[in-house]
């Protein structure tokens, strides 16, 4: 399990990192926590000859809550998301989801930036970011731009990010009301067989706002517009929840793999979506 040889870089600014990857093109990749990339390098499934480690860039760290807006640096680890007191009050769904990612050792290294930028359908944060309607900041040679998480994912491992851009931060609005991230997995450390992120706000017994998104139930994370429409304005009765679950399952498009056939995955999706909606209603 020895990867092919490469040259190691540890720039201390985003501009420095962007310069290296734009000068070297395909031969260079950035590494954050490395817990997706390094296993691929060990299996020699990825060819690169320059590894650009982002750990030395101070500007990519830190969680800030400014009024209603939460901004999280790309190099913030899952462990930091879980232990952040600011996030626990401003967006408690973040730690609920992060606690279901991998295992403790991986969470000390794995970063939110790596999780959202990698484009792996198995990663949990992209689905959650659809639910939160987050936006991502990308920095490239031409400067900075912002992309909505809901527009970012094109296909498995293909995203809106250009090869010479680095995802530097994620931002979204603080949440209110009920929330839940529900994940079915075969064992600790596994990706989801099916997972769902749900936010629900109630006003006088009626659902005034909702958001529902799915993880690992298609090539890309899915924001479930029809399921949201089934809940918003409703009394959140059993029938309303049933209609939302059905709409969300219909929006999924899983493929068969070692986690099971399509029919089973749709069944698992129905179970986790229902659990997440019900838990979010209880907390709303």
């Amino acid at each position: 399990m020895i990867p092919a040889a490469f040259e190691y870089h540890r720039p201390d600014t985003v501009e420095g990192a962007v310069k290296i990857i734009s000068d070297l093109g395909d031969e260079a990749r950035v590494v954050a926590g490395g817990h997706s990339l390094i296993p691929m390098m060990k299996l020699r499934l990825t060819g690169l000859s320059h590894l650009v480690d982002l750990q030395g860039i101070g500007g990519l760290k830190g969680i800030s809550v400014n009024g209603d807006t939460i901004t999280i640096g790309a190099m913030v680890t899952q462990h930091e998301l879980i232990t952040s007191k600011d996030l626990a009050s401003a967006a408690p769904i973040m730690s609920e989801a992060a606690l279901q990612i991998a295992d403790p050792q991986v969470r000390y290294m794995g970063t939110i930036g790596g999780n959202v930028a990698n484009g792996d359908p198995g990663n949990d944060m992209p689905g959650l970011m659809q639910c939160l309607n987050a936006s991502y900041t990308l920095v490239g040679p031409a400067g900075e731009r912002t992309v909505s998480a809901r527009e970012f994912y094109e296909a498995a491992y293909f995203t809106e990010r250009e090869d010479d851009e680095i995802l530097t931060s994620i931002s979204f609005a603080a949440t209110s009301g009920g929330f839940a991230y529900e994940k079915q997995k075969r064992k600790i450390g596994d990706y989801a067989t099916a997972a769902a992120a749900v936010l629900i706000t109630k006003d006088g017994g009626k659902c005034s706002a909702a958001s529902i998104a799915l993880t690992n139930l298609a090539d890309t994370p899915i924001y479930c517009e029809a399921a949201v429409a089934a809940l918003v304005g409703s009394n959140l009765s059993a029938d309303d929840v049933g209609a939302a679950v059905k709409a969300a399952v219909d929006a999924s498009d899983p493929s068969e793999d070692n986690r099971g056939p399509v029919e089973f995955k749709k069944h698992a999706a129905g179970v986790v979506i229902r659990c997440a909606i019900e838990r979010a209603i209880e907390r709303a």
Partner: protein
Amino acid sequence: MDKMHLKLTVNGEQVETLAEPRELLIHVLRERLNITGPHIGCETSHCGACTVDMDGKSVKSCTIFAAQAAGADITTIEGLGNPDSLHVLQEMFKEHHGLQCGFCTPGMITRAHRLLQENSDPTEKEVRFGMAGNLCRCTGYQNIIKAILAAAAEMNAAKEAAQ
């Protein structure tokens, strides 16, 4: 590829070595620095036998390049105790039969050490959750959990007695 000059602090001592960037931290520890406490189990970041403490975080040293650890402060099982003076966790693993073949034990104890630094009085559930990244092929989990809970109680009693 040219070797890099790496400087690390390992178990309180500053060490320097040459290594290729592609060498994993576990390989540099074991083969270049002769620190063989952390073991190579699965080498795919699942089993946790290679767990070391890096700047206050439990990490799987099979999934970190030594180059990424340059400048870091590393603690391995060798830095926690030695045969003449066992760490409380080592004592309790011995006392409660927390090991059978012993292969996973250095990783288990190094991880448990960090867990107890962060949560000095964990519940059984918290210990199980906090130890979820370490596997024991002898499946001796019950006694591992007992040993960690006993070590927490022992460490807290010692702290109280010292006050």
